[in-house]
């Protein structure tokens, strides 16, 4: 089948989902009110709370959720055939991700734009905030581990990418410094940065850097492991640098790269009229992970991702001009992520191989499918780029650099966030020394994912990577489950029909717990005594979440109707289920509260 037909059909379904289903959610489930005074207006301070045009906000929101994860998951999941993978991406986006992202934004706007962790304490129970912190700890640990492995694999497979990736760091710093010191416009220098990066891709292609000899000399079993260690040393140092010095200038270059890569995928497909050579349903070898439940945790970002609730609540919700804009920003943002997943599926089913037999060679087993996923994506993109007249070898380095850049940005921020979560958890359990020591907390933040990324098993083909990816998907879905539980309780309290929220919630919880049980058995049988306890702990968190969700929904069904307005005095006051000491600490910090005190409206309607 021509890939372009699939692209058009999926885009049409996304359009229908936005047109009809998101309208149903807005009117009947979330009950959006265009006259509701959003926190952006109530607490407007120009810092955190800024009423923002929905098109501006969509740009901010989308660039904050789009990354490498919606590429990797679908590139593995086509192992079961492109039909099931695509169906989960399409229906997951329309009926789960859209509901989740849109709902997280809507519920946060009605609760002073608080983030989903604080809302869990407010709406579900005080224990839920601890649950949230623990889930996020495991989520970030697994994110950092899998992205380190992804980057390590790509640097081994495409040594031509080494020079551009590592020279991009001083290049970004130089551009940032130039703009910072001269106060000049950023567009031209950043475009020069992109051009310089592409020149470096050409140089890197001429002079590939391989470190196999060094890895052998240092006693590493796999070359990838040396890259993983280098990456975590880099991430630890980068997480201590000011954001504006490295992360933001590199981000600027990345944002140009994202649009160029998307244009290459879809223009390449259009010009080349590539056909999908992968089977719609793949007859997988005996002993492979079954499609139920593993498809639904292999593709997390791209179908539904709990990370989005962190972005939607607490960040985007502080800038929503009108409550009704949540539909455009939240739901369309989820569709944007689904479109990236679609691009990945097209790349690994139409671009990566010319014949069915060639494709079956690449996806002969689950281990090969997961270990080779990013390589297949890179080769697929390179194939589309050749349709546009770019030489294949050069195009592979280009595509590898795009994926590595995004994964590295995620690692940078992931280690920063993990350090913060480690401090929060340490405070909860009374480990003051850890909670107040940035370097110590940073070391813990790096040590856990580094250990997982260095786990032996399966060589570069990546048995371990496949398993880690599934565990990452599981914790991401648990985060989404927690957010959906918060949304469902809120909808129920307002006496609106929560079925649209409860169906994806139940589906996700069933799939994740099922997968955790199957994997636990596998790990015990295989004597995997690092992964088995990890899986068991995540399983306990899943059960805890189910109990909290059921109790909260039962309580909500018996409670009086929640008022339509939230008349709290300010963004940080009101306790919101947080501990008293926590509220006291918060009140000492300026989170836009100083201006909010002056602007806090008593009437929530315009």
């Amino acid at each position, binding site marked *: 089948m021509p890939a372009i037909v699939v692209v058009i059909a999926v885009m049409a379904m996304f359009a229908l989902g936005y047109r009809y289903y998101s309208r149903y959610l807005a009117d009947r489930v979330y009950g959006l009110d265009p006259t509701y005074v959003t926190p952006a207006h109530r607490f407007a301070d*120009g810092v955190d709370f800024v009423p923002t045009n929905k098109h501006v906000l969509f740009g901010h929101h989308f660039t904050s959720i789009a990354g490498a994860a919606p590429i990797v998951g679908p590139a593995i999941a086509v192992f079961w055939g492109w039909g099931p993978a695509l169906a989960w991406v399409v229906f997951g986006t329309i009926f789960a991700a859209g509901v989740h992202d849109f709902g997280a934004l809507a519920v946060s706007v009605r609760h002073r734009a608080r*983030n989903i962790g604080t809302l869990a304490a407010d709406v579900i129970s005080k224990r839920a905030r601890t649950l949230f912190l623990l889930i996020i700890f495991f989520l970030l640990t697994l994110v950092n581990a899998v992205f380190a492995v992804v980057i390590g694999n790509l640097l081994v497979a495409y040594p031509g990418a080494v020079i551009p990736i590592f020279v991009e760091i001083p290049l970004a710093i130089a551009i940032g410094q130039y703009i910072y010191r001269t106060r000049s416009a950023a567009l*031209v220098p950043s475009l020069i940065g992109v051009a310089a990066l592409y020149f470096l891709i050409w140089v890197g292609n001429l002079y590939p850097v391989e470190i196999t000899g060094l890895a052998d000399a240092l006693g590493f079993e796999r070359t990838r492991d040396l890259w993983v260690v280098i990456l975590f040393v880099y991430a630890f140092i980068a997480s201590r640098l000011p954001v504006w010095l490295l992360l933001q200038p590199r981000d600027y270059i990345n944002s140009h790269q994202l649009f160029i890569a998307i244009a290459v995928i879809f223009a390449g497909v259009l010009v080349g009229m590539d056909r999908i050579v992968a089977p719609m349903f793949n007859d997988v070898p005996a002993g492979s992970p079954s499609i139920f439940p593993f498809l639904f945790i292999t593709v997390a970002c791209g179908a539904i991702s709990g990370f989005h609730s962190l972005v939607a609540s607490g960040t985007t919700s*502080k800038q929503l001009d009108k409550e009704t804009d949540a539909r455009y920003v939240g739901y369309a943002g989820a569709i944007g992520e689904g479109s990236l997943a679609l691009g990945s599926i097209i790349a690994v089913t139409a671009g990566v191989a010319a014949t069915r037999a060639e494709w079956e060679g690449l996806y002969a087993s689950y281990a090969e499918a997961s270990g080779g996923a990013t390589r297949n994506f890179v080769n697929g993109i390179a194939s589309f780029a050749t349709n546009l007249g770019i030489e294949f070898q050069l195009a592979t380095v280009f595509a590898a650099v795009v994926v590595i850049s995004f994964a590295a940005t995620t690692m940078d*921020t992931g280690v920063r*966030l993990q350090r913060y979560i480690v401090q929060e958890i340490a405070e909860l359990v009374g480990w003051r020394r850890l909670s107040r020591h940035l370097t110590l907390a940073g070391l813990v933040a790096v040590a856990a994912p580094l250990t997982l990324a260095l786990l032996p098993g399966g060589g570069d083909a990546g048995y371990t990577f496949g398993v880690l990816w599934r565990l990452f998907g599981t914790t991401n879905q648990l985060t989404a489950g927690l957010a959906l539980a918060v949304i469902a309780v809120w909808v129920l309290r307002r006496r609106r029909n929560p079925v649209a929220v409860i169906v994806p919630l139940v589906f996700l919880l069933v799939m994740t717990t099922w997968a955790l049980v199957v994997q636990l058995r596998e790990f015990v049988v295989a004597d995997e005594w690092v992964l088995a306890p990890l899986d068991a702990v995540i399983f306990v968190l899943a059960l805890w979440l189910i109990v909290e969700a059921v109790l909260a929904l039962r309580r909500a069904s018996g409670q009086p109707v929640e008022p339509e307005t939230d008349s709290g005095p300010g963004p940080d006051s009101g306790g919101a289920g947080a501990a008293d000491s926590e509220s006291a600490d918060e009140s000492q910090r300026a989170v836009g509260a100083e201006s909010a005190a002056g602007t806090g409206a008593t009437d929530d309607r315009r």
Partner: protein
Amino acid sequence: MARHRVLLIRPWDAPGAGSGCCTGAAGVCVEGRHEDPASARQRADQRPLGEVYRTVRAGLPAEIAVEIVDPRNTLFLLPAIVRDGRRHRRPWRTLLRDLVRATGYAAIIVDGRVVSESGLPPAEQALRIVRQALDPSAVLSHRSSRRPGR
């Protein structure tokens, strides 16, 4: 859509958006017992722009849109400048110059025209610059709407 639009570009070193799966989740770091130093610094850097925003917003009629835009949000920013410039019949040549200057350090853009760059002016001065750049009738309508008894 508002007839007049003022865009305040966030300073390069105080950005509000990032790219990648995790970067947008940084908001999670401001509601706990600790404040992440990077987030604290970032938010402190954003305060001067916040003051300019509040002053400009309060000094202009509600029908004039005032937006804070991240310099990396080129997907919105560049088309918006072209749209605003063409609506106010600005020639393509000057529009092109404004496109290049639009991501200037803490630039202020009024109806597609860059009226301040290379640094954030004090709040009152920023308001004066914006008022001068706006069509006089737009500001006058605001002054008349503030007369007592109206």
